[in-house]
């Protein structure tokens, strides 16, 4: 397969780079390791500061992809090897099987009967899902697949034996892509909250992460959009946001993830919409809402039932009736403050995927794994692969990345 631009990562930055490149006339191969496009943003309920749904812009981008023959999308796909130099890269892409072969109609019937359920990764394990399923209501491509973890399950094997449209023996395929340039848009994963011993995530059900909160607020999420206590489904009377949970912290992520303050302020609004009387606490070190985002901070500061604390939460402990108690040291007074709430939301930061899954070609990375762009290179990073940032900045960078690589392959 020959192309102009190979884009690795089908989140918002990769999708943007793909459509922008195609709309200036370049051929694109967009590679995404999951079986669906959209990366982190498709898991989100709303964007700050407009509180508009990410799926709205994604839908337009999917339409741009659907109608543009210059874009080839490979899902379940990731590179295993990349060789070559500017103008002539050779990438080996492994494509994981979806383990299905029937038509849509048959698969829908089959999925209804599927006996095996697995934790739903898309919902961060907050719910279960049939092992044969479609990832989410906006999945692109909108197709069934079998979760890989269920492939060796005996019950799944038995089910597959009696069903014409599942084939668990399918093997990955490898395709070779010859590309003149590459855009790395490999994105991020949330910092593992299990590493934050003092905050007892994983031990206390009512301590969740900000990304879990996105799913909890979403109509397609584990509770159909109703935000409740995960432990018992009871309503929220008090909640607390823990900013910099593992960020700006030498023991965890020393850097700031740039978006968590705004994300929590946004999630404050999710709770407020459902619980007009809930008492909500936010523990900040610094409230980082640069530019016009300041207006959004102002709105939350004007909410009489939202209490802003200055300080970093030192620990979270179990309290009575499933509640949890947060203890924080006020940065100004050095005094300890405690609040007891139904739900604590940890604003965990962004870890670039490129720290674990190193790019297959020699790129400059900082010590945290972010890829640093250098001028006049045929390989460019965009989005959170390059540094922590929000969606609009990711899309700016992705658009600019196309201009950068285009000139390296001879321009217009």
């Amino acid at each position: 397969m020959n192309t102009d631009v190979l884009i690795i990562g089908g989140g918002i930055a990769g999708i943007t780079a793909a459509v922008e490149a195609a709309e200036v006339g370049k051929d694109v191969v967009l590679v995404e390791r999951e079986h669906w496009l959209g990366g982190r943003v498709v898991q989100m309920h709303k964007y700050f500061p407009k509180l508009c749904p990410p799926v709205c812009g994604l839908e337009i981008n999917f339409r741009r992809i659907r109608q543009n023959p210059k874009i080839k999308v490979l899902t379940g796909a990731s590179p295993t090897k990349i060789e070559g130099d500017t103008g002539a890269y050779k990438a080996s892409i492994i494509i994981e099987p979806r383990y299905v072969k029937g038509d849509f109609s048959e698969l829908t019937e089959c999925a209804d009967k599927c006996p095996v359920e697995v934790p739903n990764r898309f919902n961060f394990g907050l719910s279960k899902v049939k092992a044969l399923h479609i990832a989410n209501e906006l999945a692109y491509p909108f197709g069934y697949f079998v979760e890989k973890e269920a492939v060796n399950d005996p019950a799944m094997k038995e089910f597959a034996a009696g069903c014409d449209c599942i084939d668990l023996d399918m093997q990955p395929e490898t395709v070779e892509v010859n590309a003149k340039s590459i855009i790395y848009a490999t994105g991020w994963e949330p910092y593992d909250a299990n590493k934050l011993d003092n905050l007892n995530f994983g031990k206390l059900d009512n301590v969740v992460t900000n990304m879990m909160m996105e799913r909890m607020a979403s109509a397609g999420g584990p509770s159909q959009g109703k935000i409740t206590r995960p432990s018992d489904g009871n309503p929220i009377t008090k909640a607390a946001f823990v900013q910099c949970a593992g960020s700006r912290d030498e023991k965890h992520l020393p850097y700031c993830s740039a978006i968590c303050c705004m994300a929590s302020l946004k999630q404050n609004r999710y709770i407020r919409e459902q619980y007009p009387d809930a008492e909500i606490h936010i523990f900040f070190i610094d409230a980082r809402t640069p530019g016009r985002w300041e207006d959004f901070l102002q709105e939350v500061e004007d909410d009489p039932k939202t209490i802003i604390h200055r300080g970093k939460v030192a620990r979270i402990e179990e309290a009575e009736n499933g509640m949890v108690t947060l203890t924080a040291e006020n940065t100004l007074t050095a005094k300890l403050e405690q609040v007891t709430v139904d739900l604590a939301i940890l604003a965990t930061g962004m870890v670039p995927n490129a720290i674990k899954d190193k790019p297959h070609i020699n790129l400059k990375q900082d010590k945290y794994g972010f890829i640093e762009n250098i001028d006049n290179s045929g390989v460019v990073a965009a989005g959170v692969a390059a540094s922590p940032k929000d969606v609009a900045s990711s899309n700016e960078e992705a658009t600019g990345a196309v201009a950068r690589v285009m000139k390296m392959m001879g321009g217009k």
Partner: protein
Amino acid sequence: MDAKLGVYICSGCGINDVLDIDALTSMVNKELGCQFCKVDPLVCSDDFVSKIKTDIESEGINRVLIAGCSPRYFADKFKFGADVMVDRLPLREYVAWMADMEFSTDLDEAPELYQELAEDYLKMSAARVKNSTPPTAIVEETTKDILVVGGGVAGLNAALVAADNGYKVTIVEKEAELGGWSRKFKAVIPQQSPYRDLQTPPHVELIEAVKSNGNITVKLSSRVKKTSGQPGQFDVAIKNAEGSETIRVGAIIQATGWVPYNPEKLTDKYGYGKFSNVVTNIAMEEMALNGKIVKPSDGSAPKSIAIIHCAGSRDKEHLPYCSAVCCRAALKHALYVREMMPDTNVFLLYKDIRSPGVFEQFYERVQEEEGIFLTKGDVTQVAEGDNNTLSITLDETLLGEQIVVDVEMLVLATGIVPTSKVDEEAVAEEEEVEVAEDGKKEKSKASGAEVGAQILNLTYRQGTDLPTLKYGFPDSHFICFPYETRRTGIYAAGAVRAPMDMGMAKNDGLGAALKAMQVVEASAVGTAVHPRSGDVSFPDFFMQRCTQCKRCTEDCPFGALDEDDKGTPMPNPLRCRRCGICFGACPERIISFADYSPNMVSQMIKSVSMPEEDDERPRYLVFMCENDAIPALDIAAWYRHKINPWVRIIPVRCIGAVNTVFIADALSSGFDGILMLGCKRGDDYQCHMVRGSELGNYRMENVQEKLKQLVLEPERVQILEVELSDWHRVPGLINDFVEEVNDLGANPYKDF
């Protein structure tokens, strides 16, 4: 070429369970005037798709109606070339999956109602394809050259990348040298790991690269006097001391940057201009660049300096927003002081330290430095003491305690004001003069034109410059589409668009350059750019019937239409974004696209069979925005939400493209109620066509007036906002509307 229609009905995915396919087929054969109607349980199979292709090639079919699943699925399979009009009718989603078989207590009725629904949809779909023709692009002679206004970091990066991509670029810079603010800085905050050390300002290398690039022409000490035309054909008059010349360009990047917030406004608050040793961060930068930081009072080196981070920013009386860079600039200034004057202490007085992302490492570096003291609080007073020293009083917000910091010099970190910000006081003065001169209270420009900052001096009917958001930034309103612009072919980049540092300005310039390249390429072949990229249709005006009402020229969200003296619209097809809002505005219905016209929509409305009042089968029409409401309905269908079988849906490009005439048509055809589902309007609007939803709502006022004249209840016509994530609500909204209007009784005009 005559329309030859082939109809293909899919019976799979549950369609067969709800509908009598044989009956549908015979209706189609009898009533739709098609060449044939074919049925298959798997129309999306490769085998069947190749049969359709054979029909096109051997039977000359040029209108294809596929009744099966939503066009959001299997799009690749049903592309048959530009000469074949295809309509994909989602029988699966709109009928089969959303059928409520318990809708009626009479068990036979529900299947009958959904059968009628499917029949109507087939008739509407046939009307759609039969009343549209394949559009052809307008191809005119265009240029692909690009103009960059502003030679700072954003503009230089934009110009260089466009030039390196083979485009001819002209840079217009108002100052005598390139480089913008970079040229006025001693150093800039680090943009490379480990993000600790200050860096050389980027302009030196950029200017060198620009000078040696044969594709770039630089015009210094110059301004844009006038811009007219359209993408691919902008004529830009550039003026400088030597005179004026006009160049033709295909796209424009406005990278005109920022000016510091006027410190004169901070006299009362921080003593600027009153106390001699209060200076701005700009003055600080200038002193550092010149190698000596001194007190203005006596020219000696200060032994202590305080910097107020949000001097006039995050302040309701001044700039309510945060300028995003002042914290890091203050940290930088603290380092300058420590480097140049090791004995001088620096006090940083901040509200929050905003060093987001990787810049946390720069903040850490500054914290390691001795002699820099960080104090959080709100400055409440600045007073002058002996020998021009300064006492600064802070409220520590949470403690309620007051702190006083005594220093020899105070630096105000003033914020960023975009050059696009219109000086309202100046404009007010200007208007007053006009009123006095001609005695009329009218602006000299076309009515409704927005006041502009007079940077590009567009000759557009809707105003001289890029429309701006709150605080005067001509930023995109769309998070997903940061280069969305309301003036096609003109892109803002850098700090004029939003407060940003030089690293971001570089990225932003590169991104804007790509959009400029896109638009010149699209203009050369006559296709639309985002959000309907690739669309080759354009609105055709039947001018003989134009009444010069100016609605289209006022309503176009993209300023595509100019006006002659009489008010006749003068279309600029290359500015057009194909939203159809003009055709929604036109009371004479003279604006049509080849594949989308008022006649087509009217024919769709009229093709719905209308039971008589006694049949007790009312009919409701729902216009739905194809960007959000329609996909939302698809998702609701996927989750098998139910929809009332009396409802007929027509997707539209935008709610702003619904002409009030359609509503009149529908009411006179006997529809009992009409609902419009569009995107959110208001400050946080989500309408992809910017103003469509707003205009749709505005036009409702006229509709309500009309209803009153006809003695019809206002509830019969409603407009509601939905967003894509509302899919779980959409069927309920439609069903509730039906229920509400049904209680009013039948449309009294039904049987006329």
